[in-house]
């Protein structure tokens, strides 16, 4: 169990509040933006969440690798819809395997 100081808790709260601001802004934007923006917004939300967990030392090998995969491919993920689809399918298989 982690023993966090008050200042650490405040910093962590700030990280989560920033994360929530991203989610709320995405939700608001997607009401009027092209629907194909949705998948990439969610995937980058995943990236941000893993970064927060990592900063809190709540690490997991699979999540760390997923973060690397997203970071290394983010340019292609943004530009190539087919690549994005295959990426999401592959990661879905990996998660299912890990959880089964």
């Amino acid at each position, binding site marked *: 169990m982690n023993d966090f100081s008050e200042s650490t808790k405040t910093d962590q709260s700030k990280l989560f509040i*920033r994360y929530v*601001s*991203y989610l709320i*802004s995405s939700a608001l*934007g997607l009401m009027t*933006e092209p629907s194909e*923006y949705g998948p990439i917004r969610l995937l*980058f939300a995943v990236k941000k969440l893993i970064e927060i967990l990592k900063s809190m030392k709540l690490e997991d090998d699979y999540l760390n690798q997923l973060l690397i995969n997203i970071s290394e491919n983010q*340019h292609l993920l*943004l530009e190539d819809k087919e690549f994005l689809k295959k990426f999401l399918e592959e990661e879905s298989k990996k998660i299912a395997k890990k959880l089964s």
Partner: protein
Amino acid sequence: MELFEALKNRRSVRFYEDKPVELSKLNNILEAATWAPSAGNVQPWIFVLVRKKEALENIKNFSPGIIGSPSAIIVACIDLNKNHYVKGTEEEYIEGRILSIIDLAMACENAMLAALEFNLGTCAIRSFNRKAIEEILNLPNNIEPELLITVGYPKIQPKKPPKLSLEEVVYYEKYGVKTNE
């Protein structure tokens, strides 16, 4: 950089080096923006330049369209009090607002082309939380943010996007006429 070369080489750069952009360069870019054409020379634009790390992070969190970490953000706004028909009918007011946005768009393109002179990349971002940005920047009611321009030294130069050919988008003299003979 020659103008036509700049026009063809501008890309929407999303990933930037972690390197600050000199204020003098940013001011040059902003000056280029102010030389854009404007209907009736009203110049309805206001620009807020953001460079401080904490402020950039705040704006980024409310702007899902910003993926990388730019060194600066130009928040391009229109001043509603400079609407061409500020005292006109509702229909005229809407027309004035459209004119303001057209003017601002031309100013933003000027800025993005000028950035190339300094080997800087830019990206025009519309996916941002307008209400939150108004709050963060302390914008008065008459100043509306319309576009964010991220600025920085490119980490990845995007490839050339497919563009429609002239044959697909140009007609000569009348709609539907594809030759100029």
